[in-house]
């Protein structure tokens, strides 16, 4: 974390040195403490890649720029610090955009550096020229087009500060080739940029929240990803117990409270347990912490928590009242705010209310066949993974049914151990994010030498969207196991067509499928296919116990659905709870 000493401390009056923009950019990244970057070189960023040659910064060569973006996301989501991805101009930059948009919606700190054609060529439709500034503008927290190498001295630390401060997010820096090549005189080095402390919210707001928490009868804490981002998980748990307030979590907040906590009712919204959504009908005080009232969480907004006074704690002032008017808004860092609340709030027990929550939790368990009858039912599979994987295992997912089964049934016990594309819902996220997570864990010395510590749960649809990163994984030999929940379909699309489009299956079923185990071997990885008829869970445990990266293909039933489900646009209480098909 401390920047490497370049022999030019902040404010030092060392001799002026003349270096290129590319060398300056690399040195500024080194001073930020960046040790690993992911990217792909190309014409307009070659000077910077030349500057990386021989540098202590490790470059991870992805096989597609989107992979580089998600590798950086994996690093950032595990560490909470901004990670760096690189791409050249034109298609390199456009390929990064999905990963940037994904980081924006999930508030992940990233710094994306793109090469651009030389300034004399900008606007001429030059080879590999695209308006990267314009394209990244709506999908980043902020973006820069560098016009002179000296600007890097201000822009690079600022980019890291913006990425990590307040509500984190991606920042893009577009660097024309001539800026990388031009020489610039540097006589002092700027301070590295990092998270700036948030302004404290007023005491009156803290007091008002304490009063509400003490005086209302049926409070619930509604946790979002901001709780994990601000490191407030333990504080949120302490607050729940102090106030006897049940807790619901968004997909992004899973891991803030362990599923075993008696006050935790798991995920709310579209694929919540029915009891969780029903509890929210009765709430008289909803305290949203780092959550943004996303439609997948709220269902029909006007019917969401209809009896509740709403308090909203968020780092982003624009989130307060954006979707649902808040009676009280507290802008700031969730950890700081919760700490102040805990300093003042007297304990209060609410036996009837917590008993009501517990009763609703046990009244509506997930429907699934017993393990003995169907060991590879996805719910059984996720529960089994929860039993055999150590609790600090980082699990990444792709997007679709498997993602929701993980959210419903895999016990996420610690913050930052579930990495998933929540807001953008990007298929193809899981594998490169797992690579990035493993890079960060190995660098921190936290990955076990004996076996996989990062597990990517994917589907046969999602995995193909960034399958080329298996080559990156093979090259790096990282402890990543990819589990393919293989149903031969775009399962969540098929499910919606079954439930809401009169079983007209339009383009949701694959008529040809690759042999994923053979595909893994072709990339130089271990590949295994689980035989459903022959001790499948034992075979899965064995495959996971072997060291090194691997792909494990797990056939699952083609008619299994994610239930319960709130139909899109409906109120959360209108859940389809029972299996709709003959298959349980």
């Amino acid at each position, binding site marked *: 974390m401390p920047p490497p000493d370049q022999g030019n401390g902040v404010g030092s009056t060392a001799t002026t040195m003349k270096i290129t923009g590319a060398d300056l950019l690399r040195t500024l990244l080194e001073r930020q403490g960046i040790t690993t970057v992911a990217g792909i070189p190309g014409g307009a960023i070659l000077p910077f890649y030349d500057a990386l040659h021989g540098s202590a910064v490790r470059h991870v060569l992805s096989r597609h720029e989107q992979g580089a973006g998600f590798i950086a996301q994996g690093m950032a989501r595990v560490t909470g610090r901004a990670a760096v991805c690189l791409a050249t101009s034109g298609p390199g930059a456009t390929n990064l955009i999905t990963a940037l948009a994904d980081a924006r919606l999930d508030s992940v700190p990233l710094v994306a550096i793109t090469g651009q054609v030389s300034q004399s060529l900008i606007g001429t439709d030059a080879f590999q020229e695209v308006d990267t*500034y*314009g394209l990244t*503008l*709506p999908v980043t*927290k*902020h*973006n820069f*087009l560098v016009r002179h190498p000296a600007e890097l001295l201000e822009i690079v630390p600022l980019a890291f500060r*913006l990425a990590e401060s307040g509500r984190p997010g991606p920042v893009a820096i577009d660097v024309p080739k001539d800026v990388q090549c031009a020489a610039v005189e540097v006589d002092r080095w700027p301070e590295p940029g990092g998270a700036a402390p948030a*302004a404290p*919210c*007023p005491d009156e*707001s803290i007091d008002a929240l304490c009063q509400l928490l003490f005086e209302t009868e049926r409070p619930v804490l509604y946790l979002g990803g901001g709780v994990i981002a601000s490191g407030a998980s333990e504080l949120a748990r302490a607050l729940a117990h102090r106030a006897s307030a049940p807790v619901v979590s968004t997909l992004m907040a899973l891991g803030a409270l362990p599923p075993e906590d008696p006050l935790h009712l798991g995920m709310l919204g579209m694929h919540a347990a029915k009891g969780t959504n029903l509890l929210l009908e009765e709430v008289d005080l909803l305290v949203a912490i780092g959550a943004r009232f996303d439609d997948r969480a709220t269902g029909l907004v006007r019917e969401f928590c209809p009896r509740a006074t709403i308090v*909203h704690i968020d780092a*982003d*002032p*624009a989130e*307060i*009242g*954006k979707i649902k*008017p*808040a*009676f*009280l*808004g*507290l*802008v700031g860092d969730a950890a700081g705010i919760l700490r102040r609340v805990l300093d003042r709030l007297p304990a209060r027990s609410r036996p009837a209310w917590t008993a009501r929550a517990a009763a609703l939790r046990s009244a509506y368990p997930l429907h699934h066949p017993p393990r003995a009858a169907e060991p590879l039912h996805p719910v059984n599979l996720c529960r089994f993974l929860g039993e055999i994987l150590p609790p600090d295992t980082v699990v990444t997912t792709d997007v679709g049914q498997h993602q929701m089964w993980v959210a419903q049934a895999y016990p996420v016990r610690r913050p930052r151990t579930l990495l998933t594309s929540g807001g953008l819902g990007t298929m193809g996220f899981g594998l490169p994010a797992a690579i990035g997570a493993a890079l960060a864990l190995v660098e921190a010395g936290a990955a076990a030498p004996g076996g996989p510590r990062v597990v990517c749960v994917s589907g046969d649809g999602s995995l193909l969207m960034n399958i080329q990163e298996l080559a990156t994984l093979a090259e790096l030999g990282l402890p990543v196991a990819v589990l393919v929940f293989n149903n031969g379909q775009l399962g969540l699309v098929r499910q919606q067509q079954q439930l809401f489009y009169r079983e007209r299956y339009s383009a949701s079923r694959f008529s040809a499928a690759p042999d994923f185990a053979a595909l893994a071997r072709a990339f130089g990885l271990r590949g295994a296919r689980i035989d459903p008829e022959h001790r499948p869970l034992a075979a899965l445990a064995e495959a996971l116990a072997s060291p090194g990266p691997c792909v494990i293909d797990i056939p699952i039933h083609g008619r299994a659905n994610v239930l319960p489900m709130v139909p899109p646009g409906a109120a959360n209480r209108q859940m389809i709870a029972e299996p709709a098909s003959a298959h349980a």
Partner: protein
Amino acid sequence: MSDKLPGSDSGGPPPPAGRAVLQLRVRNHPGTMSHITGLFARRAFNLEAIACAPVGDGTSSTVLLLLDGEPRPDQVERQLAKLYDVLEVRHRPDLAPRFLERLAGILGGAEP
């Protein structure tokens, strides 16, 4: 920074939808207007008119925005305040009619 952050209170009813003029002080560089106007398209805010001119030494500019029939003016204000290049957001209730008339007059007069 704190001067651009709207208050944390969001109690009470939202202001009525109607015409409102916002005045922004922004960093004067080529991307700023894209950030501002992009926000309006992206979040489907109702923007009726916009004017921009550099002020002082030219490092910052003043932008006037006319909102028309915008049901969420407070949300517009907060989203604008979030932009790094926007240094200050304030209401100009005094300005609405004059600003419109002048702008329309100038543009009308420029027609061939």
